[in-house]
């Protein structure tokens, strides 16, 4: 745990992960290791390939080469729904809620990753099915309370304001009871107050549920706060630039250059 990569007990390991889209190499030879319970930040300028990494981990995209090991076993050919059932759940950069379902129904769907009863039982409504439904309902309401959306339970998801939609997506992802939670820019478009609330929420989730979280984020304050005592990985143009603790990353000149570009003087000549 902490600033060094784990050598044993890795819940997730990427080995030389590469993906090409036609002529473009979106992720290049990426290797990293994460221990259970860590809170990992993934940052980098736009187009660096961060969301692509999430898509690779969940197998929405197939890697061109390299390997992905979840709890020590390769998951490269596994279908995305199976990956979710194995324990990796995510939110999306462009929110993907089920727009015509209610807030409650969206969260409840996250609980469905594991079938609770057989098809026959659903037709005949045996006690086991009813009980499973009741338990699911209770868990869903607990999750809604946790993200403070309980009062909106019957609102249609598509009609919620943006900030609440983001929270709902997080609740849905947590409902899947994951071992690794992938958060893709959860603070996008939020102002400072909203960011603070979000940080509190995510920290609360991390501390109570104790699963591993990997977070892509552009709001540096959010990243530095949540990743205290943990690692941040910096990606540029598909390759890993460096990794380290928040303090190191913030003061690393290469990282600064990657984000801001090189300094140039008035005549557009490079200033060394």
């Amino acid at each position, binding site marked *: 745990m902490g600033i060094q990569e784990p050598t044993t007990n890795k819940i997730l390991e990427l080995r030389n992960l590469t993906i090409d889209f036609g002529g473009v190499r979106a992720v290049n030879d990426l290797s990293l290791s994460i221990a259970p319970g860590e809170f990992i930040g993934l940052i980098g300028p736009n187009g660096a390939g961060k*969301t692509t990494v*999430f*898509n690779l981990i969940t197998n*929405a*995209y197939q890697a061109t080469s390299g390997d992905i090991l979840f709890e020590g076993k390769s998951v490269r050919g596994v279908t995305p729904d199976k990956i979710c059932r194995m324990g990796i759940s995510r939110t*999306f*950069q462009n929110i993907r809620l089920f727009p015509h379902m209610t807030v409650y129904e969206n969260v409840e769907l996250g609980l469905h990753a594991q079938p609770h009863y057989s098809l026959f039982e659903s037709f005949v409504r045996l006690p086991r099915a009813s009980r499973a439904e009741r338990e699911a309902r209770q868990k869903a309401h607990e999750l809604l309370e946790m993200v403070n959306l309980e009062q909106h339970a019957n609102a249609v998801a598509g009609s919620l304001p943006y900030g609440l939609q983001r929270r709902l997506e997080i609740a849905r992802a947590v409902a899947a009871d994951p071992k690794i939670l992938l958060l893709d820019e959860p603070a996008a478009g939020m102002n400072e107050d909203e960011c603070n609330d979000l940080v509190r929420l995510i920290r609360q989730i991390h501390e109570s549920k104790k699963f591993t979280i990997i977070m892509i984020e552009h709001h540096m304050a959010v990243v530095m706060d949540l990743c205290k005592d943990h690692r941040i990985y910096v990606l540029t143009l598909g390759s890993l630039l460096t990794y380290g603790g928040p303090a190191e990353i913030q003061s690393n000149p290469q990282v600064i250059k990657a984000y801001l570009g090189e300094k140039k003087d008035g005549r557009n000549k490079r200033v060394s």
Partner: protein
Amino acid sequence: MDLFIQQLINGVSIGAIYSLLAVGYALVYSVYNFTNWAFDGFMAFGAFMGFTAIASMSMPFWAAATVSMILTIVLSVGVEKLAYQPLRVRKAPRLFMMISAMGVNLAIVNTINKLYTGTLRRFPIPDSWTQTITIGQASIGQMDIVAAIIAFILLAILWIFLYKTKWGLGVRASSIDILTSSLMGINNNAVAFIIFATTGVLSSVAGVFFGIKYAVYPLMGGPVTIKAMIASIVGGLGSLPAAVVGSMILGVLETMVSGYISSSYRDLFAFAFLIVILLFFPNGLMGKETGEKL
């Protein structure tokens, strides 16, 4: 051997006609991402307009064919404006667009049925045109060859338009990403007009030729357009060259089955062919997977 050549040429001719429809279908699909069921109705409409022009108004063939083409263009573009555009601009899910398209088709085909009744009609062409050319033991219909040639000419014109003109470039850009191309200044309404006018032309030509080869009746579009869609899928949905390839393969194979096995099972073959191809080539023979941006 002669039988083989006869079947082969027949198959190529049929395949050429299928290509017209398959390309029209693939064009709409590649830009707008939905299945335009209505081109079944457009084809029947084109055939009936040509038929009426000759039978009731005694127009000469080429005039009738042109009239048919123009009227079908009007119908096609009108359908786009009234039934598809309103859904498109509010980004309706493709299920809704398919339902609308199916509705248009039902309306057109059944209106024709009501006006003309279901009797099979012979498309009126001069008898001299129905002559056959004999090569050895094979006899090939003159019209079949003409149909194939005209079909290929039309496809060539379309190809030149799409790849060698500025307008064509706009259409191709729209087939990749319609939103971005409109932001780049491509006029979406003009693109819609071009695409559906093209569908109208292709459908009416196919309708007239099928009317000549077989018969003119309200439901004539059905079996043919199913096969054109299957051909497009087999080739690889969304790609125009693939639609042509799929159509030629289907046309030839189907004619072979009809000639060597049995003609009653010819139409069944198309469906079985679809299933088998999809089992081994989930994206068609030449298809590429397109993913969504996540």
